[in-house]
């Protein structure tokens, strides 16, 4: 029988418990969150007092940043209670998740209580980062054991993609399969099946990598600044790289895991590495634990002028010193190369200290991961999945090795005496020189026992542009490509810098619509960059405005407007599937889709105000149109007007796709949210196909948009003046506000009037161009282009 999860009970409301509860609420579950009754309320009969701990934890969690909930409204899906009064309720819950303190004895006490009330057949999991799962089975019933599994969410669970699943020998295969699928599809995670080994996969390898660096940094004579520069974005890893990550995680937490590994992996050939280097011990003694104690490897101080400055720790003297500019010839060489795999080859072969560093670090890492098979995983891809999802690496160790080249790395490792496992040589002898390959849009991995390539499971229902790009690209220019998704659906992907929208992207969208109208059923606009789009290419706008080429600028804006209008008004359905940031022009493109399929983590917004402009690519028009559509007879329309006005006027960006609906960027009943990024493209394609198959006709342009004219303008002028007079915005903000207001109001018409989309597009373009002649607007654009900073002038 199919297992359905409607109600989830989370036992333990600490940082992880509350955040896990929030994420289940995010995906629509009804959640029961329990914790202990505070000592002082043991005798109390008041619910409020008895639930003080759980309520306090949940409240703090909901308020924390980044927010654990997609929308604060989802908090109502979480009910709170305590172990004493409410444990019996778990009888009606489909999945019980234990997240109490990391102590086996306490977990066991909780499990005993769970046994009393749990309905046989329901799921029971324990979330832990370090306690061996099999130790938890002691004294449990057979039904409990069969439905029991370890899990490991990474903190914060909403944002970190990794979900490790650790069955015991007694866990039913159906339960494991269910969790793997649920984690991926419903919770939107990368689910990785782990063995019950110390720290599972991601932390075993990740902490090894950090500890190896901790030990080698002094041997190689490198500084904290240098290592972070070398191990950050250049390797496709987070900006926080190594030491800054340690500061964020907390050195004490890291040390706890490292000590655990040292004690529990006596046979690990690298066990010695888990012993802390001297300077880490001293840092712990000094309580230099990182962000939580305000200093770690880095320390933020204020100089005499009150300016913040970041100092970094000199590991020899243990003194904080000003950060130094890091320069290595090898890094300079890779600067123009955007493809990480190509970069890896150059980095590994570098002739300077940086190259030496990479050869040492990767040599150790590669040797280590080969020796962890089959100890912690039987397959290479599970390790890569875990590191990518858990540590934010763009490439896991085996993928990095593929990028460098099997032989090239092997030679370096042998020369340095680093011993990979025997199966590497067997693989090489059998004639294989890569861990992965792509065939027919599917990814295959090298399977060690069978010495052959096998398809990575779980790809039956997913689509990935990365895997289709080589064989199915139909057309491309510098900034975008059209890729055939099959079944008559094509996809336009941007690949410009930060996926900004300039002339080539505009050309690409038009080309894709032309092609789809001629030969295909539907078009999807999506990409697999870090963000969907950072917006229009403001650098280009800046150049034209500075040169006072207003005719060209007018032409460019008009062309952008015409293009977004074609997205809505073409003979084929167009689905836009944004993820990450979808700002400015990226938002406008989304707002003109027939349907948006937004990833839950979509940060959408019209942010033009920040650069001294108003949305000029149909965004202002669309807000006026939606305002008109959302008004009902008797509504206080000026208030609705104000809400729409403020959303753009304050450049509000949604912190999730659900908030995108609340802010009016997405349309209820039309646009949709999907939590799983893995299924995102496949679902967008399916949606496009369904619309085509239902029978799609090109909609007619709207001519019935009710604008308020002077009635709204009174509010705009007085509101903007009050904000300016109260020092909440600058004089120039007032100027921009009035421009925005007059577009949304449809100008100074005497009465409510029905206007066309083109009327509004002309108004917004005119206002946009007028702002481009303002010196202060140009200063704002210049600031964002040259410094990446919002200027408030």
């Amino acid at each position, binding site marked *: 029988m199919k297992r359905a999860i409607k109600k989830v009970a989370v036992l333990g409301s600490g940082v992880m418990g509350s955040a896990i509860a929030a994420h289940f609420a995010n995906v629509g579950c009804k959640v029961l969150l329990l914790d202990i009754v505070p000592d002082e309320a043991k005798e109390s009969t008041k*619910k409020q007092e008895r639930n003080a701990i759980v309520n306090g934890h949940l409240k703090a969690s909901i308020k924390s940043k980044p927010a654990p909930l997609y929308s604060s409204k989802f908090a109502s899906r979480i009910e709170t209670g305590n172990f004493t009064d409410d444990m019996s309720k778990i009888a009606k819950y489909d999945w019980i998740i234990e997240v109490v303190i990391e102590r086996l004895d306490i977990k066991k006490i909780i499990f005993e209580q769970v046994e009393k009330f749990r309905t046989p057949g329901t799921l029971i999991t324990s979330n832990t980062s370090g306690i061996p799962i099999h130790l938890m089975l002691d004294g449990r019933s057979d039904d409990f054991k069969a439905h029991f599994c370890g899990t490991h969410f990474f903190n914060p669970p909403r944002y970190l993609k990794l979900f490790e699943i650790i069955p015991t020998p007694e866990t039913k295969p159906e339960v494991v399969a269910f969790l793997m699928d649920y984690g991926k599809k419903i919770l939107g995670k990368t689910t990785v099946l782990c063995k019950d080994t110390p720290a599972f996969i991601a932390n075993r390898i990740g902490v090894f990598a950090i500890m190896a660096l901790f030990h080698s940094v002094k041997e190689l004579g490198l500084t904290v600044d240098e290592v972070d520069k070398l191990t950050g974005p250049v390797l496709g890893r987070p900006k926080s790289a190594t030491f800054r990550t340690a500061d964020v995680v907390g050195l004490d937490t890291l040390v706890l895991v490292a000590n655990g590994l040292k004690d529990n992996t006596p046979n690990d050939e690298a066990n010695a590495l888990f012993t802390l280097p001297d300077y880490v011990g001293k840092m712990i003694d000094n309580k230099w634990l990182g962000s939580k104690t305000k200093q770690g490897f880095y320390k933020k101080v204020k100089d005499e002028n009150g300016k913040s400055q970041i100092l970094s720790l000199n590991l020899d003297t243990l003194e904080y010193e000003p950060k130094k500019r890091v320069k290595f010839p090898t890094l300079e060489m890779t600067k123009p190369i955007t493809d990480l795999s190509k970069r890896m080859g150059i980095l590994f072969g570098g002739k300077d200290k940086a190259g030496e560093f990479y050869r040492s670090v990767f040599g150790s890492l590669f040797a280590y991961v080969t020796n962890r098979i089959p100890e912690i995983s039987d397959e290479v891809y599970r390790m890569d999945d875990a590191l990518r999802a858990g540590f934010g690496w763009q490439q896991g160790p085996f993928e990095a090795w593929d990028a460098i080249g099997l032989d090239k790395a092997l030679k370096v490792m042998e020369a340095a005496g680093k011993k990979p496992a025997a199966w590497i040589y067997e693989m090489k002898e059998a004639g294989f020189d890569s861990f992965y390959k792509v065939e027919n849009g599917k990814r295959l991995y090298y399977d060690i026992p069978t010495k052959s390539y096998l398809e990575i499971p779980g790809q039956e229902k997913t689509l990935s542009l990365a895997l289709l790009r080589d064989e199915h690209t139909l057309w491309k220019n510098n900034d975008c490509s059209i890729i055939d998704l099959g079944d008559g659906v094509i996809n336009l992907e941007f690949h410009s810098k930060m996926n900004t929208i300039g002339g080539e992207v505009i050309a690409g969208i038009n080309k894709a619509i032309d092609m789809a109208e001629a030969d295909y059923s539907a078009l999807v606009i999506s990409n697999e960059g870090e963000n969907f789009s950072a917006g229009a290419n403001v650098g280009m706008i800046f150049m034209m405005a500075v040169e006072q080429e207003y005719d060209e600028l007018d032409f460019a804006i008009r062309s952008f407007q015409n293009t977004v209008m074609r997205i809505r008004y073409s003979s084929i359905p167009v689905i836009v599937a944004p993820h990450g940031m979808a700002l400015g022009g990226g938002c406008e493109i989304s707002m003109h889709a027939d349907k948006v399929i937004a990833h839950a983590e979509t940060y959408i917004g019209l942010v033009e105000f920040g650069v001294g402009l108003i949305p000029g690519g149909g965004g202002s028009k669309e807000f006026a149109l939606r305002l008109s559509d959302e008004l009902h007879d008797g509504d*206080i329309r*000026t*208030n609705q007007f104000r809400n729409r006005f403020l959303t753009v006027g304050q450049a509000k960006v949604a912190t999730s796709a659900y908030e995108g609906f609340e802010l009016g960027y997405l349309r209820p009943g039309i646009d949709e949210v999907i939590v799983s990024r893995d299924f995102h493209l496949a679902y967008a394609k399916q949606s496009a196909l369904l619309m085509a198959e239902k029978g799609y006709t090109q909609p007619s342009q709207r001519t019935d948009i009710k604008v308020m004219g*002077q*009635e709204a*303008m*009174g*509010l*705009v*002028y*007085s509101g903007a*003046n*009050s904000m300016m*007079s*109260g*020092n*909440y915005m600058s004089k120039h903000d007032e100027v921009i506000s009035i421009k925005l207001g007059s577009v949304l109001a449809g100008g*100074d018409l005497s009465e409510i009037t029905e206007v066309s989309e083109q009327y509004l597009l002309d108004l917004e373009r005119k206002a946009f161009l007028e702002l481009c002649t303002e010196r202060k607007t140009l200063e704002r654009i210049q600031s964002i282009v040259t410094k990446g900073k919002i200027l408030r002038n």
Partner: protein
Amino acid sequence: MDAYIVAAKRSAVGKSGKGMFRFTRPDDMAAQVIKGLLKEVPNLDVTRIDDVIVGNATPEAEQGLNIGRMISLLALDTDKVPGVTVNRYCSSGIQTIAMGAQQIHAGMADCIIAGGVETMSPIPFGGWRLTPNAKISKENPEWYWGMGLTAEAVAHQFKITREAQDEFAYHSQRKALEAVESGRFKSGIIPIDVEQVYLDEAGKRQVRNYIADTDEGVRKGTTVEGLSRLRPVFDAKGTVTAGNASQTSDGAAFVILMSEKMLKETGATPIAKLASYGVVGVEPRIMGIGPVDAIPKAAKMAGLKVDDIELFELNEAFASQSLAVLQETGINPDIVNVNGGAIALGHPLGCTGAKLTVQIIEEMKIRQQKYGMVTMCVGTGQGAAGVIEML
């Protein structure tokens, strides 16, 4: 013909939003106050009342549909007495008393109920559908400024510091706390019955009844230090905070005015009369200084010098404007707001004029004084003042 105040009563003042009157509609509250007021004049035949004049600063929504008439119907149990609603924002409650007195002076009436009511709980400041004139907004935007901005402009122009405002606010709280705790207002307050219908934890309908009879705005434990930590709310770089501005409130207050003829008919005892009432216009941008011109105007009309006034109720819309008024008029601060003001006790806009009238009458009774003045600044650049003469 003179007009005599024979009874003056008010409700306690509740905090808006989460206060004790959030379940009470303004018409119901006003009717309860008037019913209590009528008990003071047992011989009055209600059908002899000529009009009910109700001040209200936001006459819409719950306060719309000519709430004055609704109140007369609800309070008097007769359909023979009419009702009218009057709006001059914050002086509405004394404006109505002046209008009632004027009718009696002119021989057009013998008995009037006048006062004001405001519940700010259900209605946003400025009303539900703010629709300023686009032309004015463009050319004279400060005419539409929120009151907070005008308070900042006053602070700036009259050099009223943040420290002075917080100090003033602290003393308002201190005096009000003492007055509330010692029951000094009790004699002027009509207790109001409140009924709340709600769903309990189990979702079951429940009814709760309570009596509201004590002003709830005072913040015990207020310190200058605490006030100094609050952030400005109207101007990011300003000095006006939630702590040194008046509170939004719910309340109702009314008086009964009679001609001499009516006094004889009912045998009622006159308590006081409104000796004068004057209003002035000032720059809307610095609305808060309205009393500076209104105070001498009203004193002069009553044939008095400002120095003759023994007690003042100066509505504390904001500490900044109260201090500017004291500074510019030179009146002795010791006889102003002796029981605290709107910063501590609340400011139910359209009710305030009548509420302060009730308060000053009760206080002058205790102090056995003759001349008192109620004064306030009024939105969009106005000031109002009335002299109360005790009999």
